[in-house]
């Protein structure tokens, strides 16, 4: 009992191990999330492109019968009477 060596302090290795494990798992989860997000964006864009193109026919407004042009008489154009 008296000759037993003291337990070595290896806590720094333990911390390093757990930090590495959590970082690697975190990076993998982040990569899954990012790939999923990018694919969803691609999907949305492709679905938009795949939509059938609706031809917008612009209806021409019916031409109204032309009114006989009359000279507009404005106050300015009116000659002052002497």
């Amino acid at each position, binding site marked *: 009992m008296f000759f037993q060596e003291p337990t070595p302090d290896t806590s720094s290795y333990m911390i390093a191990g*757990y930090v590495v494990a959590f970082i690697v798992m975190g990076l993998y989860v982040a990569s899954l999330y990012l790939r999923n997000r990018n694919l969803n964006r691609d*999907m949305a864009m492709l679905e938009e492109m795949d939509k059938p193109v609706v031809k917008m026919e612009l209806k021409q407004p019916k031409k109204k019968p032309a009114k006989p042009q009359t000279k507009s008489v404005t106050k300015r154009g009116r000659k002052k009477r002497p």
Partner: protein
Amino acid sequence: MRPKPMTLKILDVISILVLGIAAYLALVVAPTELVMGDVQRVFYFHVGTAWTALLGFIFSAVLSVIYLVTKDLKWDRIQVAAIEVSLVFFFITIVLGSIWARPAWNTWWTWDPRLTTATITELIYIAYFMLRQGIDDPDRRARFGAVYALLGGISAPITFFAIRLFRTIHPVVIGGSNVNAEGGFSMTADMLGVFFFALFAFTVIFIDLFWNRIRLGDLQEQVEQLKLKVAG
């Protein structure tokens, strides 16, 4: 875009919880090993990730057979998911083992049979993704991948049994003792409880990540199909 199933959402939450509990048990509840000190606590995550990764590699070999029989690309996507998650877990195993080895063996790395077979396994599956990247035709890629993963699957049991078949310094903590092992130890009841909980936790986390990765593969497939439709 398919919404995430409720079961998967619940599994996501459970995975985070069990990971937190496993870390708490390993860091706080488990007793300190007298010879190695605190570094022995990485053992719980080391074995937990190794267990799930090796099972994942073997499972991917089974999926290879299913794909080769059915020729359904769905099985190829599931196989890719299994291998990717296993690769990440096995990387954690190797790094944790190396960190543990520094104070226990006085070196970061040695070409011991277990470490060598583990490295070969990891490299085999990295090469699997490189092989797939080089093939454009989906059917051909899946066929080559399946055959490769089937052969690669042999490396997983070899890695597992390496410490039982060869003369090695890697400890055999479960199911035997190794007189050559440097850093071997016997587990107390508390340690065993934490150890089995860690195995359970990493199994749950693996299933959760695996499911999420399968969904990602399905989405990728949908995008590819849509791209072809738009281009055509």
